[in-house]
């Protein structure tokens, strides 16, 4: 069956975990920065 363009290439468990951890870390970092800027905006 031809692959749909939406499907990504299967990876190993380690690669998947690493990718997820990286995205989670980035999301948390962005969230903390957002909370900081929201606080500044609310104070203003």
């Amino acid at each position: 069956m031809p692959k749909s363009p939406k499907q990504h290439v299967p990876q190993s468990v380690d690669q998947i975990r690493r990718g997820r951890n990286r995205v989670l870390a980035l999301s948390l970092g962005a969230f903390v920065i957002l909370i900081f800027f929201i606080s500044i905006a609310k104070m203003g």
Partner: protein
Amino acid sequence: MTMTSPTPAAAAANPPLPADWRDLIALTKPRVMSLVIFTGLCGLLAAPQHIHPVLGFTAILCIAMGAGGAAALNQWWEADIDAGMKRTAQRPLPQGRLDRTTARDFAGVLCAASVFLMGVAISWLAAAILAISIVYYAVVYTIWLKPRTPQNIVIGGGAGAFPPLIGWVAATGHISAMPVVLFAIIFMWTPPHFWALALYVKTDYAKVGIPMMPVVAGERSTRRQILVYAILLLPLSALPWWLPGDEHAGAIYGVSALVLSSAFLGFAIRVGLRERTGPDDAMKPEKQMFAYSILYLFALFAALVVDRFIPL
């Protein structure tokens, strides 16, 4: 091409891999979400009060997270139905690339976080409307209406109509006539938009037992109803131009709405007055109408924002 889903035996033999982040993103229906974000942003920008850019960004982020969470709940609930439909069989859950518990937990966290952040950072009224929209889509539409009545998309269409209302309330802190009219426009747009699609994927819906209008009432009735909704949408889309008070839109929006809605009606007339020529009918007018309906909503709301910033 046939789609295959992993059987329970195969799934037991090959336990699923941990969820890839791209599958979690796919769970949020990013393409649908783009329209939700855009209409929410337009509601926020078209509001008479200005909002701090950081708070505006946060409001849109909350709308996106809420819509994504509701979409993920929808896919979690409908995983078995999706597996039986060609259009949806490639989604992560029917493909077995994601387990249902992860999908449910991810959806729950997104929904709760979006409502909480909206309440704390923006306003609890906007958060309450966001929560209502999530429950409306995930429970009222997905669980209750969709498997029971051919009017599912008529009533359930309200779920997709909330974003401009939420955006407006995030900016102003209150509900007024304009965001209610914007809600009504999307509400009226949803049935012809969705039924154009349902006409050419009718067999898929019939196969999984979902009572979509073309399956239950037949194609002729659905085509007539598409036409009726498109006729009603024409004056409704121009209503923001005629609203009393200082909230009303200007001529840029009004003329754009009349032109765009007339073209929408043109597509609806083509679909409404034709019949399927046979099993090999490519359903081109229906596909064109579905594609135009998406462009229509983008263009209509873009015109509203342009009109707000360049008043004539």
